[in-house]
């Protein structure tokens, strides 16, 4: 099975405290640690496991700039067979639809049986996979938390729905699936693995290569624009207990007793 995984490099929220910059119009981007969007990493792992069982190859693509190459190399160190950087000045300022349009251009120049994305990025909204599928007229499923390859060009999948329930479906190939975290246990990538792919040439394709009209992507094609970031004033917030851990523990026990939760 030929699998494409669409990935993004995002600020890593487990490594950074995301906060406003001093101008209040963006997040503070100095010293941010970036990494691959977490659900995208699960998608790559899932693709690698499918290929290990059923054969084929895994290609990882990202829409971005030279800086984003680091996640492509990381995923190749994980085991992806190839990666591509979709990059062009015309892609700057893409909204979700713009990203999906660029990816469609790449998918149409190739032949993939299965396209995976992560379910969502921290700074976006669970949208690119569904849009890409609709553009390609492929079937789509979101929040996928298991994949089984069936005979006859179809998959059996489950989606994570409410209350820990799993919605089971059959889906025809080619299709687009958005992958939920927890579907597998992504393998560890060591420095040695990264070094081994450090000098691999990563092909780059721009708007012309993908047959895209620059007006349909980037800033020019974006329907959705972010004016600014802010931190809303929400209610009174928690009463913060101060003091040594010991003092705080005493206060907390009294408070919990008062609620009746602690006997």
């Amino acid at each position: 099975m030929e699998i494409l995984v669409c990935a993004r490099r995002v600020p890593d929220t487990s490594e950074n405290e995301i906060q406003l910059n001093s101008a209040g119009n963006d997040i503070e981007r100095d010293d941010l640690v970036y990494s691959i969007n977490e659900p995208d990493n699960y998608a790559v792992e899932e693709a690698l496991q499918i290929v290990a069982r059923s054969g084929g190859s895994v290609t990882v693509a990202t829409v971005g700039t030279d800086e984003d190459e680091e996640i492509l190399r990381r995923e190749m160190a994980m085991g992806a067979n190839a990666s591509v950087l979709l990059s062009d000045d015309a892609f700057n300022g893409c909204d979700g639809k713009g990203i999906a349009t660029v990816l469609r251009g790449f998918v149409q120049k190739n032949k993939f049986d299965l396209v995976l994305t992560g379910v969502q990025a921290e700074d976006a909204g669970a949208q690119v996979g569904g849009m890409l599928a609709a553009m390609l007229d492929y079937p789509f499923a979101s929040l996928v938390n298991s994949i089984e390859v069936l005979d006859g060009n179809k998959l059996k999948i489950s989606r994570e729905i409410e209350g820990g329930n799993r919605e089971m479906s059959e889906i025809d190939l080619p299709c687009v699936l958005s992958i939920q975290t927890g579907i597998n246990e992504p393998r560890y990538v060591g420095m040695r693995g990264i070094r081994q792919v450090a000098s691999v040439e990563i092909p780059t394709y721009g708007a012309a290569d993908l047959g895209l009209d620059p007006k349909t992507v980037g800033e020019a094609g974006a329907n959705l624009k972010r004016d600014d970031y802010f931190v809303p004033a929400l209610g009174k917030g928690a009463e913060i207990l101060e003091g040594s851990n010991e003092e705080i523990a005493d206060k907390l026990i009294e408070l919990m007793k008062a609620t009746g939760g602690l006997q």
Partner: protein
Amino acid sequence: MTARIFAYIVHKAGVVDDTAAELFAAAKKIDAAASPTAIVVGTSAEVDAVCTSVAATFPEVWKIASDSLAYPNAELIRQALAKIIPQGSIVLVPHNHFGIDLGPGLSIKLNAAFVSDVVGIDGIDGSYLKAVRQEFGGAVSAHVRCNIASGAVVNVRPGAFKPADAAPVAGTVVDKSAEIGTLTAKRRYLTTIVPEAADVDITKEAVLVSVGRGIGEKDNLSIAEELAEALGAVVSCSRPVVDAKWLPKSRQVGSSGQTVKPKVYLACGISGSFQHLAGLKGNPFIVAINKNPKAPIFQVADVGIVTDMLEFMPELAEKVREAKKVTA
């Protein structure tokens, strides 16, 4: 402002979801003078009762009855909606597991813009819809503007819009079933698997010690277990702990996990995403323990402790044991 506003109604076993009234409230935020239309999809056996119920809120209800829609398969419903929704409309969809499936692709099929997971609406400015989204797990919010010149699909976060108290209306139900044509499914629903019975039922506990990403590693769970034992509580968790396979799914609090209603909820190293908080009901006394003072959990907690949970939990456990000895 002339764009027509539609709201997709989620219902289950004949019961209309809370999001129906919330989408009506969101439509009124877009345009106070709007006369939004509800869209109800289902089998002929169930759809009429749902339409009647929804028509008490919405002035107009479009009914789509088809026995091929016995299960709400977004792949089929998207095709149906693309055939009947007029160009240039604004379509509101709940941002739940169904809306995430339906909305983005629907925007492409309608040649409309898409805004995901909207938590606030500031109205219309020219050809733009001004809305508010949260990013980075709620750490920051963003003002966004969406060009609605060719319409928009807007996925609305459940719980974000409060329905207004309004007298019931007598909305009209319009049967659109004949207009959807033949639907072809390249994705076919098979069944729903419910989780196996768990060793511990967190939904029945009065006190939960709940751990998140801040627990750091699996071995640290024993620290939480020790505190839980002292408190007569059990350990629950947020999504990252389940993703890491440190605790089973049955211990997860949140929209995709369990809905709990304890008296006391200790959120330890949990940032407080809306998906997590959606699983917390019954107005518990929430104690947030987190070393990041900006964590969104502090906005909703009753009491906050800004400290390293791994150091604090053993000290609290010890104090609780002492306190219990005194009482005994």
